[in-house]
């Protein structure tokens, strides 16, 4: 065999042993816009005159527009600016999000229990049962939170408000 042919063979053999190997792979992640909340209005039951002689009077604000206030063993008076809590929510368009909130908060005036929260969103309507809202195609929604305040015996007339902390997260 000629030296040239042998050199070729040796070169090819060397090349085969040193041949690098390579593979590609691909992990993935789905990135969403962060959810953000803006506060448009705090929950207010407006000016209410509880029947101080009895226990268990209530005032209820409905979440859906227009604002509706109902009372039981209490009188709803004017000039109190009653409104559900209203929050603006922005995030990833069309994504479903979950709203969580405490079962009870206390009113800023008198420390009376505020319960029975009801949720309404611009995109889905009443979502009290599920707590699931959905962002619009532009990534927006408006959440309105209604609730009921309960008055003990001896409660005085006042404008009753409450801070309702909420947490939202993507579903």
């Amino acid at each position, binding site marked *: *065999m*000629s030296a040239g*042919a042998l050199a*070729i*063979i*040796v070169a*090819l*053999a060397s090349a*085969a*042993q*040193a*041949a*690098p*190997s*390579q*593979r*590609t*792979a*691909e*992990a*993935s*992640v*789905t*990135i*969403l*816009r*962060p*959810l953000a909340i803006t506060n448009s209005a705090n929950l207010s039951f407006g000016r209410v005159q509880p029947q101080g002689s009895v226990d268990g009077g209530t005032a209820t604000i409905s979440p859906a527009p227009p604002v509706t206030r109902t009372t039981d063993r209490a009188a709803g008076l004017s000039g109190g600016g009653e409104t559900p809590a209203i929050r603006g929510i922005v*995030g*990833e368009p069309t994504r479903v999000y979950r709203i969580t909130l405490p079962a009870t908060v206390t009113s800023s005036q008198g420390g009376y229990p505020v319960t029975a929260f009801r949720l309404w969103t611009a995109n889905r309507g009443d979502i009290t049962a599920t707590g699931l809202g959905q962002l619009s195609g532009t990534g927006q929604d408006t959440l309105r939170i209604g609730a009921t305040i309960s008055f003990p015996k001896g409660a005085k007339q006042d404008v009753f408000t409450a801070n309702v902390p909420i947490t939202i*997260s*993507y*579903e």
Partner: protein
Amino acid sequence: MGDYGLRGVGYPLGMTFGPTMILRTLSMVLVGFGTGAQAADSIAIDNSTVPAMGKVAAGSITSTFTVDGSTGAVVGATGNAVRVKSPGTVSTPTITVTCAPCSGNAASRTMTVTVTSTGSGRATITSFTRTNMSSGVTFGGSVTGSPLIFTILFPSGSGSPTASFRLGMTVQVANSGATGVRSLPYQISTSRP
């Protein structure tokens, strides 16, 4: 040379080759080389599309998540991005490399493995970690890095020994940029002297 199909060609060494013989011999060499290439070092990945980290709500600052190669657990490492209602663990890839042919001295049986992130954009892999290394071989070099470069010394003897490891990684998600599914490509390569 025996690995390249020259046995039985019928031209004893020392015999003078004419042009035809040389061409035939070279043809055999090339065929043999093809056979040899099939037995070359190789890389196998049990799942080339993992880890799939699921949804992450971006943070206000650049954030990182670490995927544990052994357990598949994903934890937020830095920043304030949040994984969204996702399983606690994800699948991680198992990489198996084969040394073939694998003979000679230690240097020639030592494979260098390089794992490199090849992506760019809002989400990228910033670090790799090897875990669950197989036994019967000797791993050396870095455990974590980007690129992650380490060596595997295969045992002496014939055959095509394999070694395997699992891959964990750290993924960075920037606080701004396009949303949606982002691929995190990476490349595994091997070489031997």
